[in-house]
């Protein structure tokens, strides 16, 4: 799952000498939060976020004359004055997994995607990852989610899949929560059926334990903040 399959290719960027006020309008107009800053060779030299722009604006709590002076100053600012230099970038041949883990580690919301010469090829934001995640969940197709608690041993998934396939029901997705209670796994099949009663009956009669929906979680540590 390479980045170039999920990134936004028509990326909007600015030059270092673009007025910040113009950058602000671009963000608002396109409903985006990140603007890569590139030099004349399209090499990425910085990034401007909506937060950089808010910080450059005068506080709304200032007196009138101070605000006026602040705005005058803001209007003279250029992209290079407010941008974050040398932002974290990734390449089209990094993977979605790289991007998710790096976002988690660096606590940023988007990466400019650059080729081996550092030239801008696209941008990958948390929204692109969410779109991919929605697709993986399969929830844009009509269906119904279940949660089965199984022992952590080989062959459990086969039993579940066989059991459901016997009823000629297709899978929209299937997720496994890794860190469940000790020795257990939680399996979440998203099934493309409206016949929930049938699925529950079938799974129970096959000896599976169905978890109460109020106990469902995909997180590693459901009780960590208690």
């Amino acid at each position, binding site marked *: 799952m390479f980045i170039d399959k999920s990134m936004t290719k028509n990326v909007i960027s600015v030059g270092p000498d673009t007025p910040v006020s113009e950058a602000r309008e671009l963000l608002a107009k396109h409903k985006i939060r990140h603007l890569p800053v590139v030099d004349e060779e399209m090499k990425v030299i910085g990034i401007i976020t909506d937060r950089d722009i808010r910080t450059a604006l005068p506080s709304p709590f200032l007196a009138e004359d101070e605000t006026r002076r602040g705005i005058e100053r803001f209007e003279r600012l250029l992209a290079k004055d407010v941008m974050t230099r040398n932002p974290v970038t990734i390449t089209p041949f990094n993977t979605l997994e790289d991007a998710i883990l790096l976002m988690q580690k660096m606590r940023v919301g988007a990466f400019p995607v650059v080729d081996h010469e550092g030239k801008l090829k696209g941008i990958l934001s948390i929204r692109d990852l969410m779109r991919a995640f929605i697709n993986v969940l399969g929830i844009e197709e009509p269906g119904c989610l279940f949660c089965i608690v199984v022992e952590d041993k080989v062959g459990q998934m086969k039993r579940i899949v066989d059991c459901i396939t016997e009823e000629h*029901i297709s899978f929209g997705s299937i997720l496994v929560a890794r860190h469940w209670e000790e020795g257990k796994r939680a399996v979440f099949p998203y099934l*493309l*059926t*409206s016949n*929930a*009663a*049938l699925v529950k009956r079938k799974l129970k009669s096959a000896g599976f334990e169905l978890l109460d*929906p109020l106990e469902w979680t995909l997180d590693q540590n459901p009780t960590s903040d208690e």
Partner: protein
Amino acid sequence: MKKTGFLYDERFLLHKTGPGHPECPDRLEAIYKGLEEARLLPKLVTIQASRAKQRWVEAVHTPRHLIRFEEACMLHLPEYGCPDNQMCPETFDIAMLAVGGVLKMVDCLMEGKIDNGFCAVRPPGHHAEVSQALGFCYFNNVAIAARYCQLKWGVEKVGIVDFDVHHGNGTQHIFEQDPTVFYYSIHEHPSFSFPGTGREFETGTGAGEGFTLNSPVLPGQGDKEYKEILQRDLMPAFESFKPDVILVSAGFDAHEDDDMSDIRLTTECFTWIIQRILQMAEKHSQGRLISVLEGGYSLERLPELVVNHVRVLMGEAEWMG
């Protein structure tokens, strides 16, 4: 006492879904028997179904959907649209008949022959999309009836209340851009139930923004939450929309004894719900209300649920709360 229409036709039993299928002919037989044993049938205005004219079905569905569905039946295919929609060669005709029956009920209502009515039909309709059969549904009976009210009878604003435990994705999608049809649905939260739509932030699109309203309810909740939510969401919405006619997608599968969901309504709450909807109809819509069967799979509970529902429509005093 009100003149309440009752649509039932033995031919609705001819839509066979195969052994073990929850949307089975026994549902309607149980309902009919329940009304018979409660001695309500002589007090109701019986309405016989007749086949819908294709043009009215096509007021909602694409010609392609009709052709493919009819072909699937002619070829004796075991299903159409999705594997849940198991059927038999008669299914297309019966689905046309169900629509036709509901439209006849609309005629009777608009001609003043009845005050309100209940349609005991199969197959159900609220999951059916413009061009897609889904969730045991083929034609969207209620959506077609809403369009028919507008096109044939010049009704301006139709309010739809859907209390089936599943979200009526079809009805919502058909009307989500339309400010003249208000779609309200209360159902089990889509993260825990079919079909996975009907979140509270789905509120209509374009000109229809604000004319769709969804109340998802968490698994395990029951009468108390339903009553609170309906008073909080549905009633103010219809108070300002002021529908000229109210159509009800009456699904009885949120009952605690129905194993299709984890919502736990008692029999009493279903009576309360239709009482409130009827009161809204009396306040805003000159009492004009047609209720159409959707889901509800507990053969033990369906008779009492529908008997109570119909008694409320008839205005039998002790059922008016």
